[in-house]
Structure formats: structure tokens, C-alpha cells
């Protein structure tokens, strides 16, 4: 029975517009569009008005924005530092090398054959043979055991092949894999990656990267709480306005809006200030950084904030501001009722 009634009612409402004269339908349309326009106008007005509200208490607005800026500039700055470090270290493959100590009894010819084979390996850049005679000479010179070594009947050193691997930036672990493959070679007694520190560096960078994410998340949370607390105080200060607005029949959205916009403004100013802080910090460090870079690489460019990164930073900041005020508004606005 019920559903039938429902469809019947539905039908009549659907037929209604047909019965209307076109002019009446038009006035309804224009009325609706003017409502929408005034709604949007009101959004814009509130947006501007909340900026006005902040400008009437410049010191505290600036302080809140500055706290947000510092909280965001720190992880963003660390992120840039790490980005530079990993890009810089990616160029260090030219100083990484693998030493292959060949098995005793391997002839120089066999060693050269292996070297030729290795030159074709796609992960290998350069291959060098240090034959055992030359190796002994070098060792005598460097170690200072020169005299002692003269008493040995036989050269104790094997032939050594040094391999310079190609390190892919996105896959630094590939080197370790190469070392393992080389270890499998028949003539190879021991494959040793010199500069174990490169591996350590990558591990450190990885740890640092995760650290930056953790710090970033924590500071993001801090921004959320800072904005939330500031908006909570704003709500308390504007208790009277909220009560009166509620008495006059303002919807929750109407009352919420100025606080949300205030939060977004805090976020925007915080983001812009953070950008400024990072730019200043980079400016201070630019000269020594460039010197450092040229020590390793002639053509290395310090990466700073790209337009996309800046936009992302400011977007995140705005969203955190909005989110923080959303939290405060959700918790505290319903507590204030007219009496």
C-alpha cells in the first residue's frame, strides 16, 4: 500500500512543472541563481572578513603563523638537504670499486681473459688488472715492509682485478648484487667491495629519509594542534557572536565558516613564511654548498625548491590549518548554546 502511495505522490510532483507557466518557472530559476550567487558572495565576504579579523590582531596572528612556518620549514629543509645528499652521493660511483683477488695459480693470461669478459658486463664501467709483480712493488712502497718482503722466496700476492661498477641512482643495492656475482667467478678467490662506506652512506640516507618523514609527520601534527588551539581560543573569544548568531537562526555551516577560513589563512601565511625561511636558509648556505659540490662534481647543481614543491608546501600548510580549525570547531562550537 505504502509504496503505491509514494509513487502516486511522486508522479504528481513530477507533473507539476508542466502546469506552471513558463514565466513563473523562470522567476524561480533566477531566484535560485541569485540565492546561489549571494551564497558564494557570502563565502567570499567571510573569507575576506576572517582576514580582516586576523589583521586586527597582527601580533598574535603573526606568531601563530611563525610557529607554523618553523614547524613546516624544518622538515621541508631537511628534505631538501637529504635530496641534495643523495643526488650528490649518486655521483660517487666513480670512486667505488670492487677488488677481485684471483685464486693462487691463476696465470696472467687467464686473468686477462676474465678481465675482457668483465668489460662486457653491463654493470661494469672500467676494469683494471694489477699483476702480482706490480702489486708487490706497490705494496713494498706503501707498507714499509719492503725489507721484510725481500726475505720471502715467493711473491705471496695474487693477481688482482679492480672493477669500477656503474651505480644506478635508484638502485644502489645493485652493487652488492654485482659483488656476489663476481664472487661466483671460477678464478675469483675473493670479491671485495672497497668503500663499504658507500653502502653505509646509503643506509644512513635511508634512515635519515625515514627520520624526516617521522619528524615531518610529528610536526604536521603539531601544526594541526597549534591551529586547533588557536581556533579554540578564537571560539571562546567570540562566544557572544556565536550565541547571538545561533539565536537568530544561523546554521552550523554559517557559524563554522569564519573559523575554518581563519584556520586556512593561518595555514596559508604559515606556508608562505616557511617558504621564506627555507629560501633564506638556502641563501645562507648556497656558497659553501656549491664549493662542496664542485669538489665532487664539476657540474652539480644544488637543488632548491621547485615551483611544484612550493605549491605542495603551501597546499599542505593550508590543509593543516583547515584541518586544525575543523577539529576545534567540531569539538567546541556545539558546546556554546544560547541561554
Amino acid at each position, binding site marked *: 500500500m505504502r509504496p503505491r502511495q509514494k509513487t502516486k505522490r511522486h508522479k504528481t510532483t513530477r507533473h507539476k512543472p508542466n502546469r506552471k507557466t513558463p514565466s513563473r518557472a523562470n522567476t524561480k530559476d533566477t531566484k535560485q541563481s541569485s540565492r546561489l550567487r549571494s551564497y558564494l558572495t557570502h563565502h567570499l565576504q567571510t573569507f575576506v572578513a576572517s582576514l580582516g579579523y586576523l589583521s586586527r590582531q597582527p601580533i598574535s596572528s603573526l606568531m601563530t603563523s611563525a610557529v607554523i612556518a618553523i614547524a613546516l620549514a624544518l622538515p621541508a629543509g631537511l628534505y631538501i638537504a637529504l635530496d641534495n645528499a643523495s643526488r650528490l652521493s649518486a655521483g660517487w660511483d666513480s670512486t667505488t670499486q670492487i677488488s677481485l683477488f684471483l685464486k693462487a695459480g691463476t696465470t696472467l693470461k687467464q686473468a686477462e681473459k676474465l678481465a675482457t669478459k668483465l668489460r662486457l658486463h653491463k654493470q661494469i664501467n672500467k676494469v683494471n688488472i694489477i699483476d702480482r709483480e706490480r702489486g708487490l712493488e706497490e705494496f713494498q712502497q706503501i707498507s714499509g715492509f719492503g725489507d721484510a718482503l725481500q726475505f720471502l722466496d715467493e711473491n705471496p700476492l695474487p693477481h688482482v682485478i679492480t672493477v669500477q661498477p656503474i651505480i644506478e641512482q635508484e638502485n644502489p643495492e645493485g652493487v652488492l648484487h654485482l659483488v656476489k656475482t663476481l664472487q661466483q667467478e671460477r678464478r675469483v678467490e675473493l670479491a671485495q667491495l672497497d668503500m663499504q662506506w658507500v653502502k653505509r652512506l646509503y643506509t644512513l640516507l635511508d634512515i635519515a629519509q625515514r627520520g624526516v618523514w617521522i619528524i615531518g609527520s610529528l610536526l604536521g601534527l603539531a601544526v594541526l594542534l597549534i591551529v586547533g588551539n588557536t581556533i579554540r581560543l578564537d571560539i571562546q573569544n567570540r562566544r*557572544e557572536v556565536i*550565541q547571538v548568531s545561533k539565536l537568530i*537562526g544561523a546554521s552550523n555551516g554559517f557559524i563554522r565558516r569564519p573559523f575554518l577560513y581563519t584556520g586556512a589563512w593561518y595555514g596559508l601565511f604559515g606556508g608562505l613564511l616557511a617558504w621564506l625561511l627555507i629560501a633564506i636558509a638556502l641563501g645562507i648556505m648556497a656558497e659553501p654548498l656549491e664549493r662542496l659540490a664542485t669538489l665532487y662534481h664539476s657540474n652539480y647543481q644544488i637543488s632548491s625548491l621547485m615551483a611544484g614543491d612550493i605549491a605542495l608546501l603551501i597546499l599542505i600548510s593550508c590543509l593543516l590549518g583547515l584541518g586544525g580549525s575543523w577539529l576545534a570547531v567540531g569539538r567546541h562550537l556545539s558546546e556554546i548554546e544560547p541561554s
Partner: protein
Amino acid sequence: MIRFDNISKRYPGGFEALSSASFHLPRGSFAYLTGHSGAGKSTLLKLITLIERPSRGHIFLDGIHLNNLPARRIPRIRRNIGVIFQNHHLLYDRTVFDNVALPLLIHGYHHREIGKRVRAALDQVGLLSKEKADPITLSGGEQQRVGIARAIVHKPPLLLADEPTGNLDPELSREIMELFVRFNQHGTTVLIASHDLDLIRQMGFPVISLAKGTIERNELLTDAQEREH
């Protein structure tokens, strides 16, 4: 328009401000609410505006049962009521103009329309020249009139007033009452709580008298009388 059905209101703490009050205020009517201080006049008006909820009984406003109305539907109800509060409830962080404009903003009026209507309302309470003043700089009576302008600016179908003439001299009081009558003639239902028995008698509209939370006398027609009419 307003129907009270055996309404009792007990405040937290146990004091019963209204006991078994019943009356019906038809749409388009004009009535006064009187009674000694503490009789429950403000309480009755607060129940209509949903500031307070009844402990017992039923309230209907324009056919809507207010007892269990969810909070999210309250704003809509209040938007159709113009309320003049006993303590003006003006906002002291903005001008007279902005105070009066608030209901229009909430209703989503266009700003050109807002200017026209606010000035018309201020003109009606004789405060057009104070448009840009801070409410704090106004006298008690002037502040009260700003509150009146704010209550009528959006031409609500129901006007509730709690001691609207409390701070006004007799002449101004009469003018304000006549303003309410003009509103009533244009279809607005009006209920005014007032101590000013002389003025009430002069105006000659039905009176509901409260005494210690009960309706002592009701000059409005009872339901039975309405049926006879």
C-alpha cells in the same frame, strides 16, 4: 501558530518555572504576556525559541512538534522568528548597521538588498542616524531599539518580544508598540512579554497573565470557543 499543551518547565536544580501551561495563539494574532517578575514570561518565550526544552507537555509551532526536534533543524525554526531579548544581546564588536544586518546575512540576502532593508528597519525605530555607531556608545533605550530593528529587519512571520519597552520613555514605548501593531496588520503574529500594564490596557489586545508559573488568566479564545466561532 503557537500551541502550548500542558507545558511544564523544571530548571536543573528543581525550580518549576512553568506548570501545566496551555494556550493557543492563532496565526496573525497579537497578544501580551504579563505577570510579576519571575512568573515565567521569559521561560515561556525561551521554550518557543528552543533555547529551553519543556520538561513535560507538548509545544507546536506552526504545526511542528518542537519537543523532539533534532538540533540540526533548530536554525530553520529560529530564522522564522524575530526575537527581541530582555538583555539586548547586541554584538559590541561591530556597528549598529552590522548588528541589524546579521539576520539578513544568515538568510543569504544580496548585499544591496541588505543595505536597503537595514536602513528601513533603523528608520522605523528612529535610529537611522546611528547606523555607523558602535552599540556601546548608545543609551540603553537606543540599544534596545537596535535589538528591535534586528528582530524585524527580515520581516519574520512570528515576532516575540521580551520587555521591548523596558528602557523606553512612555512616548517612545507607545511608538514601538504601534510599530508592532503595524507589523501585525501585515500578517505577523506577535507575542509581547511586558510589565507595562497601563500601556497594555491602552493598546487593547488579548492578555495572557502568568503567576508563579501558571496561567492565571487568558484572554485569547480557548479551543472550545474557537470551534464555536
